[in-house]
């Protein structure tokens, strides 16, 4: 099947129900999108599909045919994504970093839909798990982005 990922076209030979995550990681060799739980619980595998954040570990690859997938590898090609990354660095958000690809994707999706989210809207959108406990830094970074201070 034909996939559009990061504005490139790929031919992929995979079963229709293969999770998008494993096609991205193993077939296409892009490892920035992480496996954490495989059950859409943690959000480490978050990618954008047509601009919406989805959990690629439970998204059958057939479901994204004809859609535009964005992974962390291309996030800086997006104007909002680039701001998110630089704010993440400015706030020194990452600790182990394993969940942060997903966090950056979730923040980018939020801000693309709603450039000025309230704190409540940030809390409602930023629900990915982080075992290092970077939640306050994540919130502060998105808060700054929402206020246009980043």
């Amino acid at each position, binding site marked *: 099947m034909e996939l559009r990922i990061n504005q490139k076209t790929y031919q992929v030979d995979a079963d229709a129900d293969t999770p998008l995550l494993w096609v991205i990681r193993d077939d296409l060799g892009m490892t920035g999108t992480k496996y954490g739980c495989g059950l859409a619980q943690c959000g480490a595998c978050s990618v954008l599909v047509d601009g919406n954040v989805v959990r690629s570990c439970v998204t059958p690859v057939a479901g994204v045919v004809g859609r535009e997938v964005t992974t962390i590898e291309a996030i800086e090609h997006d104007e909002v994504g680039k701001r998110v990354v630089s704010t993440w660095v400015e706030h020194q958000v990452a600790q182990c970093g*394993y969940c942060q690809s997903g966090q950056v994707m979730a923040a980018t999706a939020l801000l693309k839909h709603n450039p000025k989210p309230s704190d409540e809207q940030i809390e409602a959108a930023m629900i990915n798990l982080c075992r290092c406990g970077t939640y306050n830094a994540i919130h502060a970074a998105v808060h700054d982005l929402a206020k246009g201070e980043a």
Partner: protein
Amino acid sequence: MNMPVDSMEDLFKRPLADPINLSRRRFLTGTAIGALVLGFGLPLGSTRVQAAAGGGAVERGTQVPAFLEIRPDNTVYLRCPFMEGGQGTFTAMAQIVGEELDVDPASFVVEAAPPGEAYVVMDNGMRITGGSMSVRMSYPTMRRLGALARAMMLQAGAQRLGVPVSELSTEPGKVIHAKSGRSVAYGELAERAMDLPVPDPASVQLRDPSQFRWIGKPVKRLDAYDKSTGKAMYSIDLKVDGMLHAAVQHAPRLGMTVGSLRNEEQVKAMRGVHSVHRLPGAVAVVAERWWHARRAVEAIQVDWQEPTADSKVRPMPADFSSDAYLKRLATEKGPVRDDETEGDVAKALASAKTRIEATYNNQYLNHAQLEPPSALARFNGDGSLDVWLPNQAPDMFRADIAKRTGLDPSRITLHSPLLGGFFGRHFLYDSASPYPQAIELAKAVGRPVKLIWSREEEFVRDALRPVAAVNFRGALDNDGWPVAIEAISATEGPTEAIAGKQGEKLDPTALEGLSGKSYAIPNKRIAQIYVKGPAMLGYWRSVGNSLNDFFYESFLDELADKGGKDPFELRLRLLRDNKRLTTLLQAVGELSGGWKRGPFTAEDGSKRARGVAMASPFGTQTAVIAEVSIENGQVKVHDIWQAIDPGSIVNPAIVEAQVNGAVALGLSQTLVEEAVWVDGKPRARNYDLYPILPPARMARVHVRVIESGEKMGGVGEPPLPAVAPAVANAVAALTGQRVRSMPLSRHSFT
């Protein structure tokens, strides 16, 4: 579209220019395989190593070329003795070495060093990443390493410029000859410098701390950008040419063995399957893609066999229940072995007018680091072996692999990629790591194999945070002040659990946090009843303190309440001869806007209260105040104020981040987290049934770092233990309900 990352250069996006110093080239021609450059042994014939050795034993952390390469572009490549798993040690080491070498830490590229004597830099003669020891145990040695390298740069500069060393100085990244106004960049001197003998370690002078540019400053993490863009590579991300993927299905209970596979032929015929394998306590599928391997291995119908008497692992009984086990621990009678005693507890208890008793317990926990364990194993043409795996102790892992494979350690190249969280997960726990399986599979299929444990297979084999039931007795004097405290813990500590038996001395990791308290209570007794349990146990961030401070500091509040004392005032009184802890406690009070216990009504109309607790883990002192309310019958933690005194620190921004992280994990175990076992199996094998703290349950965190100048303590773990008791004490103040077990989600509140 494969992206082979068969070299560490690719992995870490290092500049492509060849490093210029000779030692590096010697390493490359030594034992390195293919494009891999890690895992070399130091070339013993090297003049510089001999010089450093002075003909005898090499002094710790002096083999400069083993640690440092300075490249033509003036970047500095540091092989770090410690693993980076989020705690910021790569950045801290760049600050420490850079300060003395006179290079901006931002110019450093840091990777984990391979196993080997050269990297055993800790004061205690070890090389592990744990116990919050990396910085505090290597600080003077790593500073001296930087100073030795600087001295070599100066020497090389003197040769290059044809002037005496005494006329030279350095500025960041260069040697300066002030008299002639000339300077030479380190990158230009590196080749010459690294071929010089390492100077006598006693000959170098360290920088006056008042002149520090980077130590003590909030230097930016070196890995922040790569970790915000998906570029950082973890074990799970690695790939080598010709690699196959593997997944396993573990026996439902440890110790069970593989019987017949009822549908082996069907599974072999599944898409992408290369082969099906029987392993000790597991079946495996090797496939072209991990998803194929996983789907196939989960389809295998295995007739698991009960453990035999000669089982090499700790067999999990079919009737094990964690709840029943905790009840049993609470009634264990002995034998009792004393750890810490002072005065005469029995007499004080007998003669006191007011006595109280209480029994506490905690829960098992998973590490639940976000990166599931994996291992990549490759046998090379010459029979040598490369293994990439998450680990906190490379020498121990290499020794274990040598034992398992019969290979000489020199034939094993161990790679230690970034850790996607660890919290104690990646020490050497028998049966809890995928690398023995990966090695066996790679050998069987004759190709490199990367094995990833699914989250479910991880949760069933993780080494758990231990449990204890502690029986407390306390006595008050006629004025209501504590005069005696006794804590008898029925438990198995992680260290004795790994050893499989109790040692001659008590396991300090079983009792830390009950023992080692500084309160002036004249009669005390801290003791253990050793109970060997069926669960595999491991170290979990802050280890024994993670449970024991919850017990002790909660019971201390019970004593305060019984005597009609305010818990903050009681602690101040019991610490009145201890200036460091008095200062610390007052600092956290101040940070919170002045101690107030409540209950009080907050601005939003909610009824709230505060609790206080202290801990002394890993050479550091901490004090925490928590503010809570009750929402829908559950505890909401609004704010955590924490004062932390690690003596002195290297990076205040990283310390603050570590406090945040430790508070999150502390809240997680306090509020929601527990590994419950029923019928010998974990009830939860993923985050759906094993909740870890979600963002919505995080508290605001306020940090004050106090540098008392006392001996340097740890940072990664110490901010955790006082969180749970501060919250429990706040809950008691608010609701009148004293909670004597974690997590609080087991209780309901009004």
